[in-house]
């Protein structure tokens, strides 16, 4: 910590002294570089942190710069008033450009945002209010008592302060609940929704953040150059910006800054050969994505690796404190006449089941019988074609996954959906965090509150990890862990949500005998802590020993429902699920 502060102080001092050693041309280059770095941080937040392909960052930049230019020259507003309005305008633009993200992602989002960026340049090139292709010049110097911001040396300090605040804010966001939810959403939007992350709101937030960074850069650009023209906001510059973020390392804001500085300097070195510079940075982008996808920011880790060789061990699970089940009058989950149709396939057909509070319900059936589809309908991933789902007495049919998660439903996935670029601790932290997107006002207005909240969450996460015996793996990435441990992490993550209902989709798949035994112990403890459990499982031994009631699905229909012993001897089950030949050899554990 002390060393970090010292390094920071040295860097700050160096940046503060920088203008004393350079000529007027160099300071101009430095000023422009800082603006690009600010843009890159904004793009990094949207693309690297939140995973939203945003090719309109240069348009946000343009909206900021043009709004200042138009308001100061056409309406005679002061620079700072215009700047404030410009930030507002970019935030609105950001929300507008971000709306498609609610419906489409990845390359679709790329083309839509790119199209909107083109639409922006098309508009400023043609509109008379923006001065057409010539642009607008003679933007007034920003007035600041006692400081002449017409000097590029003094403007550097203004930029430096704004940049430092913006970068610090960005880093704060990344490391606290908001950024963690964004990174979770980037890694796996589906699982993020399932742990209660408000995916749509968060996507809009990502665009709003990116646009405000872009707008700030635009305001600074207008104040620095005092002239705006369409070519500054061209697609070529968008791609340059993208190259900065990729080469620097999109998942690290400091990497984005490094990329922006590196490419700006490279461009300056090759200023007489702009097309060769273009060939150079284009090639570097290709090489980076193939050989070093984490960019410059990932390089230190490559050299630092294999430092810790100490053995990590899975500790035993500590049972939860027992709690009484508040069994209301009605069952906790009621599924009524659910049908789900995929094109020609009827995956679920008139499925009705009730699960009482405090129950451990098993759902079994051959592969393709609709078990996971049922889970997906219950947790809001699929909308049922017919029928109704009620949770704790409330009708929740078709509610979005994150709302159901917030209402107390948690689940695990058949094929493990952990956030792969988040550590085990962060995986759990995302699920622990109950803050809503609407409370992001605390970020600019009351960051101390955010920080305190984060500290409390971390303490809770450590406690939960210790309970599941995962403390040794808290800092590891899930992909590096053995399969059995990943399964346990996923259950820990689900329990971090403090659910009332836990849905486990084949939790024993791929586990060895001892691990299955531990799993049984964990599930029993979860139930006695007051959580209702529904379990899809092929391991009949586990189902028979854990569940009070078992529901059997075949071809999307319920064919039997009862105690394990009843179900296991029902002829239709033996035929559908175990096959005819099994009926003689079947042993029912008691």
């Amino acid at each position, binding site marked *: 910590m002390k060393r970090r502060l010292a390094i920071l102080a040295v860097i700050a001092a160096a940046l503060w002294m920088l203008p004393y050693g350079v000529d007027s041309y160099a300071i101009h280059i430095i000023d422009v570089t800082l603006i690009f770095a600010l843009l890159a941080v904004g793009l990094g937040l949207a693309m690297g942190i939140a995973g939203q392909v945003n090719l309109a960052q240069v348009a946000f930049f343009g909206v900021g710069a043009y709004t200042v230019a138009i308001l100061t020259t056409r309406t005679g507003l002061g620079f700072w008033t215009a700047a404030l309005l410009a930030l507002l305008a970019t935030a609105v633009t950001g929300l507008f450009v971000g709306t498609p993200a609610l419906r489409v992602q990845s390359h679709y989002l790329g083309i839509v945002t790119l199209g909107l960026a083109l639409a922006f340049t098309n508009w400023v090139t043609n509109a008379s209010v923006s001065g057409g292709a010539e642009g607008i010049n003679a933007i007034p110097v920003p007035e600041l008592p006692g400081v002449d911001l017409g000097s590029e040396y003094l403007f550097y300090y203004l930029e430096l302060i704004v940049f430092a605040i913006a970068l610090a804010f960005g880093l704060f966001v990344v490391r606290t609940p908001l950024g963690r939810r964004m990174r979770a959403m980037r890694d796996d939007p589906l699982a993020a929704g399932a742990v209660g992350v408000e995916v749509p709101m968060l996507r809009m937030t990502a665009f709003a953040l990116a646009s405000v960074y872009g707008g700030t850069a635009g305001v600074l650009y207008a104040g620095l150059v005092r002239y705006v023209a369409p070519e500054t906001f061209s697609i070529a510059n968008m791609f340059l910006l993208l*190259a900065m973020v*990729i080469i620097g390392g999109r998942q690290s804001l400091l990497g984005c800054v490094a990329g922006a500085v590196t490419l700006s300097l490279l461009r300056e070195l090759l200023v007489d050969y702009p097309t060769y510079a*273009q*060939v150079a940075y284009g090639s570097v982008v290709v090489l980076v994505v193939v050989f070093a996808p984490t960019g410059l920011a990932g390089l230190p880790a490559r050299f630092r690796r294999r430092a810790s060789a100490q053995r990590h061990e899975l500790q035993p699970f500590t049972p939860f404190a027992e709690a009484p089940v508040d069994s209301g009058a009605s069952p906790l989950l009621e599924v009524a006449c659910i049908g789900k149709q995929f094109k020609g396939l009827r995956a679920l057909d008139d499925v009705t089941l009730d699960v009482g509070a405090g129950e451990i319900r098993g759902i079994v059936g051959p592969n393709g019988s609709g078990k996971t589809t049922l889970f997906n309908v219950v947790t809001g991933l699929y909308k049922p074609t017919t029928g109704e789902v009620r949770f704790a007495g409330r009708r929740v049919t078709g509610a979005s996954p994150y709302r159901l998660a917030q209402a107390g439903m948690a689940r695990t996935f058949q094929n493990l959906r952990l956030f792969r670029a988040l550590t085990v601790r962060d995986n759990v932290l995302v699920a622990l965090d109950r803050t809503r997107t609407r409370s992001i006002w605390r970020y600019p207005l009351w960051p101390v509150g955010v920080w305190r909240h984060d500290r409390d969450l971390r303490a809770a996460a450590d406690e939960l990890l210790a309970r599941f015996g995962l403390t040794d793996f808290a800092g590891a990435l899930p992909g590096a862990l053995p399969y059995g441990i990943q399964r346990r992490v996923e259950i820990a993550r689900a329990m971090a949500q403090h659910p009332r209902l836990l849905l486990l989709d084949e939790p024993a798949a791929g586990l060895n005998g001892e691990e299955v035994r531990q799993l049984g112990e964990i599930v029993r403890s979860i139930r006695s802590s007051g959580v209702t459990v529904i379990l899809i499982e092929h391991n009949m031994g586990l189902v028979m020993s854990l569940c009070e009631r078992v529901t059997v699905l075949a071809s999307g229909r319920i064919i039997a429902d009862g105690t394990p012993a009843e179900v296991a001897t029902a002829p239709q089950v033996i035929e559908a699920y175990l096959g005819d030949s099994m009926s003689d050899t079947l042993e029912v554990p008691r």
Partner: protein
Amino acid sequence: MQVTLQTLIGGLSLGAVYALVAMGFSLVYRTMGLVNFAHGNVVTLGAYVASTFYMSTRLPFALAMIVAIVVTGLVGSVIEFVLRPLENKDFDLMLIGTIGFGIVLDALAIIIWGATGRAVPSPVRAAPIDLFGLRIRTYDLVVLAIAAAAMVLLMLFLQRTKRGAAMQAVAMDHEAATAVGIHVGRSNSIAFVIGAGLAALAGGLVGPLLYVSPTMGGALGIKGFAGAILGGFGSIPGAIVGGLAIGVLDAFAAGHFQGYSELVTFLVFTVIIMVRPTGIFGERTVNRA
């Protein structure tokens, strides 16, 4: 009415070019799930190579076109080869990789042919056809015919040949395709080469319609992509319909909004995508959990 029809015809011929571009996008996407953002720059490359051979060496237009297709096909296979390590792993990274290639191709075009554009004379000198008072340029008909032929050939290739069937298999499930002995890399490579060839065809054909310049590919690429998505990404008939639709939309936007046509085209496109993300012929893929 007269004006409307005339605009429609103008839009269709440019739309046929967009359709060719869209087909390239769609073919690569359906085979390997990748959007090739360098596709537009390959169009530029094709346009330059075709026009250079046509104008300076006085090769017949058709022959110049074939040269262009071969050259861009090579470029396509290089792109695929370099990005192969990322295939079926990280699509966002691959997408950015193709943007990188686009940046390089863009700069190379400027280095080789200069930043200023060139006008290409029409290879068809016949007088425009007069049909019920509508003037139809003969070259427009040639463009439409070639686009239609390319679509038919591509569909035949995909459905009637063994190689085409193998590519369909890769598109559906690359792991299962590997398991039955299909070389996925080669299949992807062929998709890329054909895609690049289609781009060259589009670029060569559009030369006499527009002005050949380093920036032409960007606009053509984005509109072709828009066409592909509009039709239903990955669907070959969808690419044709979507491309033609974007061409017509573009022509009407240009007629009514003059300089603002691009703005209108992209706003309309955005709205359509939000209303129906899967396009006209597309199918929603199911999220598997």
